[in-house]
C-alpha cells in the first residue's frame, strides 16, 4: 500500500460557549472529538454523517482554517499543527478546498479570470503572461472556455460555478483537495457531470481527495475508503465495499437502511431510528449513540467505546464488538 499523505491523530476541536456579561466560558461544544484516520496518496477518502456531526469542522481544522484544540495533523511527513501562519500559507498550495455553495465562495464583484488568478498571485507567480496562460488552461480543464473568464459569478449556473470552484482549487496543482459537500446544491443531472469531472481530474493529476457528504450514494460512488461520523466522533471506518456490505456499527446500519432507493424492486429491512440527534453541547455520556441505538446495553451508557480493528482494515467503535462485554 502507498504511504499516507495525510495522518490525522486524535484531532479535537472544541468551541467555547460564552455567556453572561463578561462572556465567561459556560460550556463547550465538542464539534470534533478525538478523530484519527490516515489518507493515502491517490485515494478518495469519504466522510459521511448527518448535519451537526462535525464533518465540516473536521475539514476546516485539517486545513487549519480553524485552529484545532488538540491533536496532530501530519501532511507529507510534516506536522502542520506546529507551523507558523506564514509557513502554513505556503503549504496550502498543496492542500486546497472546494466548498458546498460555490456562489457564496466567489466574490460577486470579480470577473472569473480575476478569481482564478488570485491564488497564483498569492503564491508568487509574478509573470503576468504566465498567469494568464494558466487561467486559460485551467478553464479548459474543467470544461469551460476562455470566454467564460470575462464573466461575473452571477452569470453562471450552479454547475458552472462549481466548475469554477474546482478550477480555483486546482490551479496551484495541489496534492490534496478537501471537498465539502461539493455536489449537494446541484441538480441530479448536473451532479453526475461534476462527479465525473472530479474523477477525471483525479486520474489526470494524481489527486487525493477527502470527500465530505451527507449523501451516502454519492460517497459510495466516489470513495475508496469511508469514515462514518456521529456527534463529533468517528464510529466506523472501512473500505467502500465492506462498509456497504457489512456495516458493523448500529448507526451505519440504520443510516444505510434509511436511504430511499430509486428502485421499487429493492425491499429493504428498514431500521427507523427514534428521536433526534442529541445536541453536541450536552452529548450523552458513554457512547454518544446509545440514546438512539436499538442494541444499547447498560455498559454503553457509561463507557465510551474506543475505535478497534475488528476485521482487517475495518475499524468500529462499538461495545457490541468488545470481547470482554457483548457476546
Amino acid at each position, binding site marked *: 500500500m502507498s504511504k499516507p499523505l495525510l495522518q490525522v491523530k486524535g484531532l479535537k476541536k472544541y468551541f467555547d460557549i460564552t455567556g453572561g456579561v463578561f462572556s465567561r466560558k459556560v460550556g463547550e461544544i465538542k464539534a470534533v472529538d478525538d478523530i484519527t484516520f490516515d489518507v493515502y496518496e491517490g485515494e478518495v477518502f469519504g466522510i459521511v454523517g*448527518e*448535519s451537526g456531526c462535525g464533518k465540516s469542522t473536521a475539514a476546516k481544522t485539517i486545513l487549519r482554517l480553524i485552529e484545532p484544540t488538540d491533536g496532530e495533523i501530519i501532511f507529507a511527513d510534516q506536522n502542520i499543527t506546529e507551523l507558523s501562519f506564514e509557513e502554513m500559507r505556503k503549504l496550502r498550495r498543496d492542500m486546497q478546498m472546494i466548498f458546498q455553495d460555490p456562489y457564496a465562495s466567489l466574490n460577486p464583484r470579480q470577473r472569473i479570470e480575476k478569481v482564478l488568478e488570485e491564488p497564483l498571485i498569492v503564491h508568487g507567480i509574478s509573470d503576468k503572461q504566465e498567469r494568464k496562460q494558466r487561467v486559460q488552461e485551467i478553464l479548459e480543464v474543467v470544461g469551460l472556455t476562455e470566454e467564460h473568464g470575462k464573466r461575473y459569478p452571477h452569470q453562471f*449556473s450552479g*454547475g*458552472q460555478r462549481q466548475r469554477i470552484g474546482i478550477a480555483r482549487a486546482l490551479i496551484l496543482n495541489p496534492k490534496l483537495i478537501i471537498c465539502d459537500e461539493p455536489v449537494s446544491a446541484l*441538480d*441530479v*443531472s*448536473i*451532479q*453526475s*457531470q461534476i*462527479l*465525473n469531472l472530479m*474523477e477525471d481530474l483525479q486520474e489526470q493529476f494524481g489527486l487525493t481527495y477527502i470527500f465530505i457528504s*451527507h449523501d*451516502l*450514494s*454519492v460517497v*459510495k*460512488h*466516489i470513495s475508496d475508503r469511508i469514515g462514518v461520523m456521529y456527534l463529533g466522533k468517528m464510529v466506523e471506518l472501512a473500505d*467502500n465495499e465492506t462498509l*456497504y456490505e457489512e456495516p458493523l456499527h448500529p448507526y451505519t446500519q*440504520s*443510516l*444505510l437502511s*434509511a*436511504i*430511499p*432507493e*430509486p*428502485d*421499487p*424492486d*429493492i425491499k429493504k429491512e*428498514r431500521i*427507523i*431510528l427514534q428521536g*433526534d*440527534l442529541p445536541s453536541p453541547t450536552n452529548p450523552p455520556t458513554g457512547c454518544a449513540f446509545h440514546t438512539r441505538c436499538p442494541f444499547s446495553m447498560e455498559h454503553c451508557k457509561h463507557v465510551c467505546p474506543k475505535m478497534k480493528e475488528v476485521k482487517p482494515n475495518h475499524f468500529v467503535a462499538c461495545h457490541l464488538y468488545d470481547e470482554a462485554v457483548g457476546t
Partner: protein
Amino acid sequence: MKKTILEVRNLHTHFYTDKGVVPAVDGVSFSLYEGEILGIVGESGCGKSVTSLSIMGLIPSPPGKIVDGEILFRQQQSAGEKTEDLVKVSKKRLREIRGNQIAMIFQEPMTSLDPLFKIGDQIIEALRNHQRISKKEARKKAMELIKSVGIPRADEIVDEYPHQLSGGMRQRVMIAMAMACDPEILIADEPTTALDVTIQAQILELMKKLNREKGTAIMLITHDLGVVAEMCDRVIVMYAGKVVEEGPVRTILKEPKHPYTQGLIRSLPKLNKREKRLYSIPGQVPKPGSILSGCRFAPRCEVAFSQCFAKDPELYRIKEGHQCRCFLYEKEEDIVHV
C-alpha cells in the same frame, strides 16, 4: 376506476418580469385520484413548485399570473358531487378551501412557522379559522394532533416556540397543522429535502401512515427519485414547465420512455452497484422561456432529430396510464387530448 378529486387542465402560469414573460408552467395537465400518492419530479426550475402554488392560489400577483387553464376540485357533498374551478373562485371561497380541504407543507418549516407565536397557538389558529370550536376544545385537539404526528411531550410542546424545536420536529408540527382539518388533499413541496436521512425516513413513514389511515391524497413534489420509489403510486416528470412523462411508479423507474427520464435515472449513483463512470446528461437545464420552439429537451437530447427542434411534441400514449412527450413514440391516434 378511482375517482378524480383534483384535475389540472392545460395550466399556464406566467411571470411578468422586466426581462420579459417567463412561462414557468406551460400547459400542464394531470389528475389526482382519491387516496393516492402522486409524485411530481423534476429539477430546479422545471415548474413543479409553481404548479403546486397555482393550485393553492398562492402565486404572488404581480409578477405571476395564471393566464390559462383550469384547476378542477371535485368534492363529495351530501347533495352529490360538486366541482369548482380554483382559478375562478372568489378569494373568500379559496380561503375556505385552503388549509381546510387542501393543505400544504413546505420545504423549510422554519420559514413557514411564525417565530413569534407558540406552536399550540398556531395550530389553534388553523383549527378555529375553519371550524366553529371553542378555544379550550381547539387546544385539546391541537394536543391530539401533536401526539398523532409522533412528537413526544405534547403538553410541553404546545407552549414552546418554533426555534426551540429541531428541523424534524418542526416538519412534524407543519404536518400536524396541515392535517388539522382533515384535508382531502395534502400538497407536500420537498418536505424532507432539508432533513437528514434518518429524520427523512421518520417523516416519510409518518406521511405514509396518514395516507393509509385517513385516505388523504398526497401530491409529493420532490427531486429525489429515491423518495418517489419509496412513497408514490404514480409519477409525473416535469421539464422546463411541461409534463414530459407520466405513469405508474414502477413503469417510470424501471422502463422510462422519455430520454430525459432515462437520463435522470441513469445519472444517479446507485448503492447496490458501483459503476466506473456515471452517465450524465450533457448541457444544462434551460432557463424558463429560453426555448420557444420545438421540444424543450431537444438541445440536450442524444436522440433528437430535426423534427424535435421544429415542432412541439404532444403527449403520446404508450400504455394505459403511461404517457410520454416525445416524437420517438409518435402515433397520430395516440395523442392524449386534454
